[in-house]
Each structure stands twice: as structure tokens, then as C-alpha cells.
């Protein structure tokens, strides 16, 4: 009990420390921290529309965060969620504008395309991680750059809307993810995200497979001794994580933009990773950290309008928070666990 309290207390102190540092940074860019805070809060929660806007920003961060949680729980790092999101978004859009299908079916197929695109995009890094222990941190990061460039290429060279700027034609309405309220683009994606969080939480705490994977993340030798097939589970976990990453792209494409364009969903994948880290890989905790980051993002839109501070200041604050709590993030991963740290001598 006191263990838990200590860790909570430490975490809270660390976040306060980070916010203090953030305030200092804001001061150095010649802006009042208090004014920035008020503007942020106002921007994030100032009206029902703004609250909806915050939730709209929260949705992709949450889904990406869940994708990250899945890999973290198994002691793996899928940092390529950004790329999976772009791939998922593009292929969902492609299904959305290329076919004209009955409403529910169309939406379902477009979403399935997003999920498959995400899985396909992580398949090769996942295979090499499982089979040859190829460092998945680097391979998934590099894959991000490729995904963003390839989707841009496809958009501009193959599917550019005539007369439009670098964007695809809009999807048919039959593939729209329905909106929740009339006054906002906030859509069922949020419900999907919350459901995913609960499902993943249930998976890891209540199912046999989830138990096996958690133990693999916590103590691989114990898991191996208990008869868990590490290679197979590693591959499947990364594929599942990629699937959810792709789904995040599908939700953005089908629920918000209804098309695909350059700079489709900047930084949501990374924000998701950070939200999951801050929640220490817990999907329920990720709901709250994603909301926190969503509010920061949403508030920062007003920040650029009302103050001289840039909206990237919130990225700085996010990073500072992670650094401040980094010593307490217990997600296990030793470099020695991958080829990166394998100090094998060669000639």
C-alpha cells in the first residue's frame, strides 16, 4: 500500500517539477506562464464545442496509446504507430472513395482495410524482431518515414483529386464514421477508443493469453519456463499493436477528414506512445493521459491565436513530463534484449 502511495507521490512530484520547468521555458520565450495556462484551459474546455474539440483530439491519441500499450505490456516497443496510422488512414480512404457500397458494409470494409494496412506495415519489423531479435525500436521508427512518404506519393501521383491540393477525393458518405453531436466532428471513434481501452485492459487482466503475454513482458525466463512460445507471441503482439495503429488512421480518415492528404495526422502516433508511457502501459490510465494530451493539443490551437507562444510548447511540456517520470516507468526492456546491446564480438 505504502509502495503504491510512494510511487503515486513520486509521480505527482515529478509532474509538478516538469510543469515548473515548462513554465520556465515559457518565460524564456517571453510569455506569462499563467496566461498560457489560462489560454490552454479556455481553449480546451471553454465551451461545449471546445470540449468536443478536445475529445476529437483525444480520440486518435487514445487509440494510438492503446496500440502502444499492447506492445509495452509484452516488453516490446512499437514506435512505428505513426506510420501504421498513415497507412491505415490512406487505405481506409482508398476503400472509401474507390467503391460505392451499402453504408454499414462500406464502413466496415474501409475500417478493415485500415486494420490490415496497419498489420501489413508492421509485419516485416515484427517478423525480424520475433525471429532474429532485430531491434524493433529502430525498424519501426524508420518505417514511419517511409510510410509518410509513400502515402504522400500515392496521394499525389495516383489519387489526387482533380483541382484539389495534395489530397485524395472525398470518401462516399456510406463510409463515414457517424458523428456523435451536430455541433462537432466528434464521432464514434471516441467510443471505439474507449471500448478498445476496456477490451485491452480485460485482455491483459482476465484472459489466459493476456496473462501469458504480460508475464513474457515481466520475466521472459519465467514465461519460457512456463511453456510460453516467446517468438510466436512476440510476432502476434506486434501485429496486434500495428492493427490498432492502423485502426487509428481509419478513424481519422473515416470520422474526421473524410479524405487523405499530406500531413494527415501529425504526431498522433508519437503522442499515443507518450500517453501510454506516462500511463506505464496501462490502457485505462491511457484514457486519462490521452485526454490530458488531447486537452493540451486542443488548447494550444487557441494558444497560437491569443499569445505569442507556439503550440509546440506543449510538446516541450509533454517531453519534460516523460523525462521527469522516466525513472519510474517500469516497462521492461533491456538493450541486451535485442541485437542493439548484444555485445557480440566480431572481427
Amino acid at each position, binding site marked *: 500500500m505504502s509502495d503504491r502511495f510512494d510511487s503515486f507521490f513520486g509521480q505527482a512530484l515529478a509532474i509538478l517539477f516538469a510543469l515548473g520547468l515548462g513554465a520556465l521555458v515559457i518565460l524564456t*520565450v517571453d510569455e506569462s506562464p499563467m496566461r498560457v495556462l489560462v489560454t490552454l484551459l479556455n481553449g480546451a474546455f471553454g465551451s461545449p464545442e471546445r470540449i468536443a474539440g478536445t475529445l476529437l483530439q483525444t480520440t486518435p491519441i487514445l487509440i494510438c496509446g492503446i496500440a502502444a500499450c499492447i506492445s509495452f505490456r509484452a516488453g516490446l516497443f512499437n*514506435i512505428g504507430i505513426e506510420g501504421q496510422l498513415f497507412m491505415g488512414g490512406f487505405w481506409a480512404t482508398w476503400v472509401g472513395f474507390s467503391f460505392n457500397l451499402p453504408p454499414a458494409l462500406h464502413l466496415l470494409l474501409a475500417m478493415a482495410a485500415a486494420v490490415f494496412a496497419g498489420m501489413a506495415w508492421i509485419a*516485416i519489423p515484427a517478423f*525480424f524482431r520475433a525471429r532474429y531479435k532485430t*531491434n524493433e*525500436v529502430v*525498424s519501426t521508427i524508420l518505417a514511419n518515414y517511409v510510410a509518410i512518404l509513400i502515402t504522400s506519393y500515392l496521394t499525389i501521383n495516383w489519387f489526387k483529386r482533380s483541382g484539389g491540393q495534395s489530397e485524395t477525393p472525398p470518401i462516399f458518405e456510406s463510409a463515414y464514421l457517424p458523428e456523435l453531436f451536430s455541433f462537432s466532428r466528434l464521432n464514434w471513434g471516441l467510443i471505439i477508443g474507449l471500448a478498445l481501452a476496456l477490451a485491452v485492459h480485460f485482455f491483459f487482466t482476465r484472459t489466459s493469453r493476456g496473462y501469458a503475454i504480460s508475464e513474457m513482458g515481466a520475466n521472459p525466463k519465467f514465461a519460457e519456463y512456463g511453456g510460453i512460445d516467446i517468438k510466436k507471441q512476440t510476432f502476434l503482439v506486434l501485429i496486434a499493436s500495428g492493427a490498432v495503429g492502423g485502426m487509428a488512421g481509419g478513424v481519422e480518415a473515416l470520422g474526421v477528414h473524410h479524405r487523405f492528404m499530406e500531413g494527415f495526422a501529425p504526431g498522433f502516433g508519437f503522442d499515443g506512445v507518450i500517453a501510454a508511457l506516462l500511463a506505464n502501459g496501462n490502457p485505462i490510465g491511457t484514457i486519462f493521459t490521452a485526454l490530458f494530451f488531447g486537452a493540451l493539443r486542443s488548447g494550444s490551437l487557441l494558444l497560437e491565436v491569443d499569445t505569442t507562444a507556439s503550440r509546440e510548447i*506543449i510538446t516541450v511540456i509533454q517531453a519534460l513530463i516523460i523525462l521527469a517520470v*522516466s*525513472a519510474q516507468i517500469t516497462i521492461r526492456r533491456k538493450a541486451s534484449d535485442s541485437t542493439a546491446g548484444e555485445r557480440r564480438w566480431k572481427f
Partner: protein
Amino acid sequence: MEVLERLLNVTLVIATIRTTAPILLVALGGSFTTKAGIFNIGLEGQMLVGAFFAVIGTIATGSPWLGVLCGIAAALTLALIFALLVVSFKANEVVVGLALNILAGGLTVSLMKAIFGTRGSIFGHGLVGLPALKLPNVKDLGWFGQMISGYTPLVYAAFILVPVLILFYNRTRLGLYIRVVGEKPEAAEALGISITRIRYVSSLLCGLLAGLAGAHLALGYTTMFTENMSSGRGFMAVAILIFSNGDPLKILLGCLLFGFSDALSLRLQTLGISSYLVLAVPYLVALIALFALSYRSRPRVIQETLASMGRALSVKSNTVKPAAATDASKP
């Protein structure tokens, strides 16, 4: 043929040398941490702040050399935070590295907006780059002279650092200790070598070169700062470090491969191939190299297994008795 000639000529070599230099500098920096047994994913961020503060320093002082120093100081600060959290507080190196990269991205853009009121890029404002070095008497060397002259100083620095680092790892005490700490910490401990100190030193040396790489990017390779201008070079450097194991010569080879693919892809653009695909080439090369080289290590494992089985069988034929009986029959 004509296409090939257009692609492969002296100017391509020059372009390769130019594009290799920044990634070579940052990868050589990463070799310190790699050799010391630290997985440093934060190279990207160190390079980025290096570039930004090099530009700020140059604009503030009017001297690009003082700018370079500012860039190095900024990268060193990130390196120090990295070492503090990873070495002293035992935080997860991936988490800290990623967070520092994100911090670098946010910080540079925020400061750019705060100082210059713009987004995107900084140029002008009295920003001057590092001067190109014209080597004397190279005219006589013909195309070779053309190839080795006229770069900014940090390009030479990058290539000269390769033999310097080889010497460092093989002939200096610090270099030796860095290798020992990474490869066999128990041995270092037994000899009274402080693992903590060596890891701090490696992290800072890494920051030094990463800062230099950033400064070169902003003052030598170009004369400007652009949002996220390191554009994944730090991550590619990490990929190179994984398969080179931090050896300077292998790092050079890896970086030349990237420099070449970078230079070649820029050429491809002139042939009308989409710039998006062309820009993806270096990342793809990094990925393919990473996968191919980890796949290659596979046959070695199989070989070892076969060898050990062979040994087992040969040992068996003549050791069954010795193990059981010789000990007893000794005088």
C-alpha cells in the same frame, strides 16, 4: 548508357561525400555510447538542437565558429540529461531517448517562433555558413583534386575522425576502457574502472559529435535551420550503429552507403521520378540493411550449432572413458 553516365560521375562522388558527412559525424558520436553498452536513440534530438543553436549562435555573434560551439553546448546539455537519467537514475534508455527527441523537436520550433516569429525555416538575419576550404595545388590533381577540395571544414573533420576514432579505441586508455565497459562490465569493475564515469564520458563525447553533426547540417551542408531538419539521420545512424557494432570503419562504410543512396536519389529526381519516392530511398536502404544483416547472423548460429554437434560427437568417442576413469587412475 546515357542515363548511367548522367548518374555516375565525379559530381556524384562529390555529392556522396557531402551527404555522407552529417550522418557520419552523428554515427561516430553514437559509436561512443554503443561501445560503452548504451542504446542511444536520442541522437536525432541532439543533432537537431545542435543545428538550431549553431544557427542562433551564428546570428548572435556573427561568427559561424562560435555558432558551432553553441550547437555543441546545446547537444552536450541533452547528452548530460540523457546520462543523468539513464546512467544515474537507471531509467529506460529508449524512453529517455525518445522523450529527448520530442523535447528537441518542440523546443526548437517554439524558440524559433519566439525569437523570429516565424515557423518553418530560419535564414538570412545575417546568418553566415562555414567557409569552404579550397585545398592548395589541387588543380594539378585533375578530377581527383576536384573531388577532395572545396568542402566546408566539418566535412573534412568527419572523415578525419574515422582514423582518429580507430586510434582512440585501439591505442588510448579511455577508448579501451569504453570498450571494456560495454563488452564486459564485470571485468571493468574487477579492475576498479568506474562504469558510471566511463558511461558519462561516452554520453558526453557522443553529444559533442552529435552537436557537431547538427552544426554542420545548419552551417555547412546548408546555411539555414529548418523544422526537424535532421529528418531521421539520427535514427539511420542508430541503424548503422546496430549493424556496425560501433566500429568506426564499418560506420564509415554504412554511412557511405547512405550518402550514396541519398546522392543517387537526388539524381533520380532529375530523371522525373517522384520526389516522395526518392526521399524514401535512404530510409528503405537503412531498413533493408538492418534486416539483411540481422538475417545474415542466422547462418552463423546454425554453423555454431553444427560445429558444436561435431565437437560433441568427436569428444564423445574419446572422452567417455577419460571422464569416468582417468581421474580415478591418476597416480
